């Protein structure tokens, strides 16, 4: 084994601890069925689907869970003629 590599290493355990803390904090909340981010995700999509017909394939949802805050990015492609189909969309809310 290369000694230089051995000495130049930084300990990895702190990183492991930090990652686990963030993850477990989120999971413990989620198990109480009150995962805020998931709820927001579903409700945001539901609200938009009420006004615009959403193509399920053109929706990307990205999440980044952090220790202090989480970010949720919902990227929805709204087709040019989407508003014309507003009436249909009202009946077809399952896109979320």
């Amino acid at each position, binding site marked *: *084994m290369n000694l230089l*590599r051995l000495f130049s*290493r930084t300990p*990895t*355990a702190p*990183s*492991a601890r930090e*990652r686990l803390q*963030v*993850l477990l904090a*989120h*999971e413990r909340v*989620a*198990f109480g069925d009150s995962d805020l981010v998931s709820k927001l*995700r579903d409700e945001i999509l539901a609200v938009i689907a009420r006004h615009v017909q959403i193509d*399920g*394939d053109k*929706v*990307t*949802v*990205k*999440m*980044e*869970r*952090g220790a202090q805050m*989480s970010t949720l990015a919902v990227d929805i492609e709204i087709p040019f003629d989407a508003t014309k189909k507003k009436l249909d969309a009202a009946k077809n809310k399952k896109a979320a």
Partner: protein
Amino acid sequence: MGKVIVVTSGKGGVGKTTSSAALGAALAQNGDKVVVVDFDVGLRNLDLVMGAERRVVYDLVNVIQGEAKLTQALIRDKRVETLYLLPASQTRDKDNLTPEGVETVINTLKKAFDWVICDSPAGIERGATLAMRHADVAIVVTNPEVSSVRDSDRIIGLLDSKTLKAENGERMEKHLLLTRYDPARAERGDMLKVDDVLEILSIPLLGIIPESMDVLRASNLGAPVTLADGKCAPAVAYFNAARRLAGEELPVAVPGEKRSFFGKIFGRKAA
């Protein structure tokens, strides 16, 4: 059409998830398009080992239940852009995996990726049999230790009977990946020898991964070991295993020894 690989073992804790992540990353680092699918519903860990645990929105069960599109559930690796992860659900029960749902997902992935790597849960129950069901090739992860070898033998029996290939009367291609191999213990004679394991299981050898702190460090950091430190011994062993998987004929070096194995020699006798 991509190849579907199941990484399985029967016994838990032998290194299935580590190996799925490392082989998946190694194949992707060579430019192939790879997706690693976590089948361990209820106890997902692949996302942690691949460092994507904070980015999971949807999972395999959501896709199977029609709550999300496959493309929405796939998480692209931040380091290698041809590497994707399909996480398992942490909150649902494994009964949510239906055979039809799994089939649809695998068939769709096969069309879009060069490699579909299915990380099987431990055991021989539903999750494990569903993970292996659609595989073209199986990687049996084994530690040089009696209980692991016996469980692997049991899994090989299932691969030869419970998979679509077996039911169609075809032969499932199987490879042995020997993990957590400790040269010091081998030297002392306190570990099953490579030859013994090969003789007992009689399937060709894909690689020998040495027991190493580097593997632990990589999982602490949330990176497959081939990405965390591509030069360390286990990473090199995984890179070589990935090349053999892709069809190259490379001798398998035994850690701490001068000799090597030619997988194909054992391949002839393989079941």
